[in-house]
Each structure stands twice: as structure tokens, then as C-alpha cells.
């Protein structure tokens, strides 16, 4: 499978192949992060999700992110959970806004001080 690595701005074009024994070979990458991405993208693609949640009493929303990547298939569920959330200020960078979002085991944390 051909893919473009999204880890850094270089955007390496990689070839990711699943071998007969079930192992995965990645070529075209220029760093170990590329290899890891290639394997994960083939078996269980994941993405960081950044988003916004409502702040009580304010128009300006709070920016947030998943602390680590979540399965691609779960992005909609994560966004839905964010949409359902309203936070109270003050909030600091790193504060957990939604714990274990959409049962992914990943916390959503604040990315700005407000």
C-alpha cells in the first residue's frame, strides 16, 4: 500500500506491505517514526484530534486536543463528545477536559490558558 507519511512536513512517500507471516515491511521512510506510522496506518490508523469546546458564558471557545492519537474510526465520536461539552473557566494548558473520550482510553486536554 502506497502512503504519504504525515509525521512531519517532509511527507515521505512510503510503500507499506503486509508479509505472508503477518509482519509489515515499510520502505521509503526516512526515519523510525515513518516506519511506526506506516505499520499503524495499515493495521489501525490513528489521528490526533484537535477541536473546540464551549466555554460557559463566553462566545470564545476553548481549544483542546486528544493527548495521544485516537483510532480514525473514532474521530466522529470524539467530535460529538466535544460538541456535548461545556467547560467552566479558569482552565490551564494540560487540564483534562474530557476523560477517556468516546471510550478510546485517551483524555482530551486543554491547549490554551483561559
Amino acid at each position, binding site marked *: 500500500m502506497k*502512503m*504519504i*507519511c*504525515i*509525521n*512531519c*512536513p517532509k*511527507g515521505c512517500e512510503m510503500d507499506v506491505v503486509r508479509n505472508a507471516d503477518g509482519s509489515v515491511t515499510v520502505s521509503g521512510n526516512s526515519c523510525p517514526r515513518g516506519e511506526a506510522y506506516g505499520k499503524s496506518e495499515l493495521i489501525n490508523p490513528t*489521528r*490526533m484530534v*484537535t*477541536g*473546540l469546546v*464551549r466555554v460557559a458564558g*463566553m*462566545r*470564545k*471557545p476553548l*481549544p483542546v*486536543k486528544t493527548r495521544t492519537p485516537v483510532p*480514525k474510526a473514532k474521530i466522529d465520536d470524539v*467530535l460529538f463528545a466535544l460538541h456535548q461539552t461545556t467547560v467552566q473557566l479558569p482552565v490551564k*494548558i494540560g487540564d483534562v477536559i474530557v476523560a477517556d473520550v468516546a471510550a478510546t482510553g485517551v483524555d482530551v486536554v486543554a*491547549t*490554551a*490558558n483561559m
Partner: protein
Amino acid sequence: MNVDAIVIGAGVVGCAVARELTRYNLSVAVLEAGSDVAEGASKANSAIVHAGFDAKPGTNKAKFNVLGNRMFEDVCRELKVPFRRNGSLVLAFGADDEATLRELQARGEQNGVRTEIISQEELRRREPNVSPEATSALWAPTGGICCPYELTFRYAENAAANGAEFYFDTRVAAIRREVPKGDFVGDAPFPYRLTSEDGREFLAKAVVNCAGLHSDEINNLVSGTKYSIRARRGEYLMLDRDEDGTFSATMFQCPSKMGKGILVSPTVDGTMIVGPTAEDVDDKEDKATTYDGLEKVKAGARRTYPGLPLGKVIAEFSGMRAHETTVGDFILGEPCDAPAFFNAVGVESPGLTSAPAIGVFLAGRVAERLGVSRKNPSQISRDVSWWPKTREMKPEELAELVERDPSFGRVVCRCEEVTEGEIRAAIRARVGARTLDGIKRRTRSGMGRCQGGFCTPRLIEILGAELGLPPESFLLSRKTAPKALASSARPGAADIETTLDVLVVGAGPAGLAAACAAKENGADGVLVLERDDAPGGILQQCIHNGFGLHRFKEELTGPEYAQRFIDKAAELKIPVVCGTMVLDIAPQPDGDIKVTAMSPRGGLKIYRTRSTVLAMGCRERPRGALMTPGTRPAGVYTAGTVQRLVNMDGIMPGRRVVILGSGDIGLIMARRLTFSGAKVLACVEIMKKSSGLMRNVVQCLNDYDIPLLLSHTVTDVEGREHVTGVKVAKVDDHLKPIPGTEIHYDCDTLVLSCGLIPENELTKKAGIEMDPSTRGPKVDANMATSVPGIFAGGNVVRVYDLVDWVSRDSEIAGRAAAEYAKGRKA
């Protein structure tokens, strides 16, 4: 409602008539179909005060042109409107044209207009940038330039100050005369009954028809003498202030078989206008620009000005002329079968020039007909709701003003340096602004080179607060908004110190990195000035991740990355003063640098510093720079503006979106808008490959099945009030659209992501040498500019792909600035 005189139409002629009517003992109302003054021909024309040699002798056009021209100084002084008698030149290209020049000169003599034919040599001496192909020219010293909407607006203000009432969104649908025949005076008190489209009734003793493009329809409701107006569309290009001074006179071309030619003229605002085309169109409201039209304007303008720099185009627009097809002249006065009904029909060019004279003439006729006298001069108000234009003020005047009213210290439109105070004054005026376009035309906010990219979010916030409406309601249409009343003012922020080693302009990642590096390298007095209300620069709105891999070895979001530098600056005790706009940077004879800045609370403040780091960042290319044809409705935004609206102001600008250009911000916003519930229909890129990073194409478009159309561009924008759709076509190897390849998208939003340009007004003002390839200052390995003591870092130098390189290079600038300051102290 009943009044003595009703004026239909609030263009320049209608407002001039209304103002002159208020000189008499009359009650006056103005009914306007649009939601503001100057919504028709008055808002988009060449802005020329014609000398009057062109019109056929004996016509109303000739008579009122010459009369109006002579009145302009006085009128503009009274109304406090800028006017410049810069003179005009008609260029001849060869012997045929020269014969025409002599004809024009003779016609001018008959009209009483002095002109002079000048030689090629003399022409080149006066106008060095004119084409060498021009063989001679007709010089008319009485030609001038003026701002047509400002003139209209001040006429309206003065009319309102003298009691005229303005009714907007009031389209006259029917007019009934209560007295069927003969002279009614004394018979019926209010012989004219006007009904608006929505059923409101207005009674009047006299009616003046100044309905411009629709003046034929109004006349035909009343009189048996029928007229017919054909809309004649003219397309224009507007060029950046950088072009100021290229020509001192208005440059016409000799009329020929080929047409009237394309003019190139300075404007009173310091920009350059180029155009118009002349195309008869069926639809009187079809103000779209076209690919062919804009090509004609470009080609025509190059005959006069071969060096026409297309990169300096900031806007393209079209305007309508009301061409009367049966008479072909201005039709002014009472038709024989409708006493006390007065026409101003077919007022096309030279209508702006003639407006003051038409106003006086028609008001006089109305007064005569109704037998009313002039008001005593002491009863006449001279007020025009004038407010100070801060960009034209002397520093000491400005300082005093800001002390009285801090809102005049808060710059909202960076390009045209328009302050919040001016914008509030424009909204609070008698005939105040109620829309984004209304603010734009009254204050120039959003009219500069970024075309509202930065100020739109601020403007809707101010409009919302002043008029008591939600800010996003002003995004629905550039020209229509509901009415309401309310008022609020916000407190300012900031106070400061004055003797400095390193002053940094801008508190984005570049400025903060430079300031920290300067402090760490031994600079004592370090100060950062920031125009926004908070530090962090553009990163505040870049809430996506992917920043900092090189520098911090982890992936941060924009606000997180910014916070690292904000925290570091705080640790180093570097003051960061927000809400402060630097207006000028001037190297001094003693080697210091004088920095002039303005803030709402601090007023105007002057700093002396041994060195300075410029870190103003960059701006997006606006629609004007892309020359996208079509209408100019609400719903067209740059990607950065959308990013600010969605991520910081919590406002969704639309639901069905097409993105033009595949810059990184556009790609990022494709995903963000999808996350926020919008449908992104396509991302359209004119080049063969995306201009953004591949990783962003993958994770922002491919992940969400958003098509990327390479070698395609938007060829038409549709919609009057708001975008209703766009046409997209494939382009050939010369980037020209290929006929027959059009795809249509129904959409409510067009997002532009077509590249960034370093923001260098201050740099240029400081006399720093620029690099035409990067559009930033030339810098050496230490990020030093050509002016000793002035360094630069970040996107102000060149547009970077990665913020890590921005902070790295800015640290070099900060260190070098610290060394320089230490060297000067020693």
C-alpha cells in the same frame, strides 16, 4: 407620512438634491431602495471630476459638467470631503488621435473649458511613467479627483443635519397623482402618493426622481413621456497605495473607433484606479466582474502605463452607468404632464461632476414650484458629522485626541490605519453605517491591501455592540443588516517605559523569540509591542497540532507553542504591551531609532531605542490580488479570517464551502470546517500540485474525502447579497480557463487560501531596502536590514513553512540586536 418634497434615490445626485432642498423652508424625505447611501452608480465609478471638454456643446451634460466642476472646491470644503484638482491628460497615440485631440480642444472652447495640447517631450517631463508610444496629449488643468461615496455620504449627513429624513430599504413601487390634470397648486395639499414595495405610504407636494438606474421606471410610473435606461457596466481594477505618485494627472486615452479607452488615475486616497470597460447589460443589478472584462482593462491600461504591476492589484469591481437610450443626455426637470414631479434621469458620466450643480438646479425648481423661500442662513446647519481621520493627523493632535477618547488609539484596520473611534463615529453618524460595506465606504476600513482579512472579525464585533445585534448577523450580507439600537464601550489596556536597548515589534513567535534571545544576550531594556489584545500572534488561532517537532521534539498545537514563548518572556521579565500599534519607525541622526506607537490607554507614545527587531508577520493575499471574476457578495473570506472566526470568535461563517487555493491554512480549515459541521465541497488549485504540505493534503482532505481539483480555478462567483454558488473550470498550461470544463457548486462560502505576503508597511516607511523576491526586507546572516540597528525576524522577512524556523531565525535577530545595542552603549 407626508412631507413637502420627496427625493427618490440616495446616490450622489439624490443626496445633493436633498441637501440643497433643506436650504429652503421645506420638509424633505429621501426614499432609498438599498440599505445605505451610494449603493448604486455612486459607489463604483472612476471618481473623476471632469473638466468638461468632452461633452457635446449645448447639452445638459456639457452645461452641468462645467457648472459642477466650478463648484467642487467650495462644496468639498463645506462638506469636508477630499478633492484634488490634479488636472487631466488625454493621450494621443499617433496622427489620427492628434486630430481627435484638436476636436476635443475645440469642443472644450465651446463649453468654456480651457485646455492645451502638449508635446510628447512635455508629456514625458510631467508624467515620466507614461508610455513612450503616446505622441502628445490634451491638458485640462481643471480636471480633478474626489471620493464619490464620501461626497454622497457627507451630502446626506448635512441634509440630515438640516432635517431631511432618510428611509432605507424603501423601494418605490407605485406613484399616484391625486389630481388628474392641470396645475394642481392650491388644489390638493399633497398631490403625490408614493407606495413602497412593502406597502408603506408617503405623501408629498413634490417628488424628485434621482433613482439612477431605475429613474426610467420611476418616471414611467408618472409621466406619459417614457424613457428607457440601459445599464452600462464598467469594470475596474484598484491598485495598492504603493502606486501613489506614478501619475500626477488623470490619464485618459483618446476616444477612437476602438471605444473611449481605459483611464489610469490616482485617487484621493492614494491608490490607483484603472478602467472602465463599457458593456451594456440586461440586468441592472448585475455587477459581476468578468474574466474578459478584466483582461480588457489590463490591456487598455498597459497602453498608457506599460509598467502596470498586476501584483499590486488589491481589488476588482464593476459599476453601472445609467445610460438613457432615447435622448442620450441628462433629463432634468418637470415632464409636461406631471407638475411638481422632477426628473434627474440618465445621469451617467459626468454625473458625479454635475451632481452639485444638478442639486442646486433641481432644488431651486422645486422651491419655485412650491413657492417657498430660502431659509435664513443662521438656520442652516453646516454639520456633516465629521470625525477625525487619525491617519492624517499630526502626532500631537493625535495624542490629545486619544487622551480624550481612547478608542481613537485602537487601530482596527491595519492597512488603512483606521481606529475604533472612527468606526464608532461612522456607525453613530446621522445616516450611520449599518453594514460592513457601510463602514468600509465611510472609513476605508477593509479597503486596503488585505481587503478586510484582518479587520472583518473586529468590525462585526463593533457593529454588533453598537447596534445591539449578534456579530455574525453582519456576515450574512455585506450590504443589508437589520436595525436596532444600543451602545457600549470597552476599556483599554497598557502602560509603558521609555529608554530601551531592543524594541521588538510584534509578539508572535518571531517577536517573542527575538525578545527572549536579546534579553538572554545581555540587553537590558527589552520591550515588545503587540497590536492584538493578547500575545501569541497568529498561533493563537492555529489550534491544530504539528508545531514544534524540531525545537521541542514534540507535536504541539499553535496556542501551546505560543505559550512556551509567552512563559519564557514572562520568566525573563520582558514586558509585552498589547493593544499597541506601531505607526512609525524612524532612524535618528544620533544613531538611535524613534518608534511611534499608539494605544487606547497610553495614547501616542514615542520610544527611543538603540535597536529594533521587526516581527510583524505576514498577511494573506486577498481576493482582489487573485482577480477572481464574478459578483462581490458576502461569504468570501480568506482562510485566516475563517480560522479566526471559527477558532477564536466561535462563529461559523457558512455550511457549504468551496476552497480556492491549497495553501496550508486552507487545507487546515477544510478539516476544521468539516469538524464544525460544514460540508467542504472541493479544494480548487490552479497549479498542477498543492501549494500546501502533502501531510496536510492527506490528513485534511483525503481523510474526509474532500476532492482536490488540481489545474482548476474559480471562474465565477455568484450571488447578490451572499454567495450562492461558484463556477470552477480547468485551466490550460498558461493558467487560462478552458471553455466547456465548468463545474458548478451550490455553496454559501468561498474560502481563499492563495498564499501569504510579508507585512512590511513599517519596514518601507523606515526606508529599509526590500527584496522583491521575498517581498520582505533584505537581511544579512545576522538578520540585519539595510538600516543600522534595525533587524527583522520571522514571516516579515519571508514566508516560512515552519514556525520552528521562524523562532530560530528570530533568535538570531534578537541576539544581533542585543550585540548592536551593547556596542552602541560602550
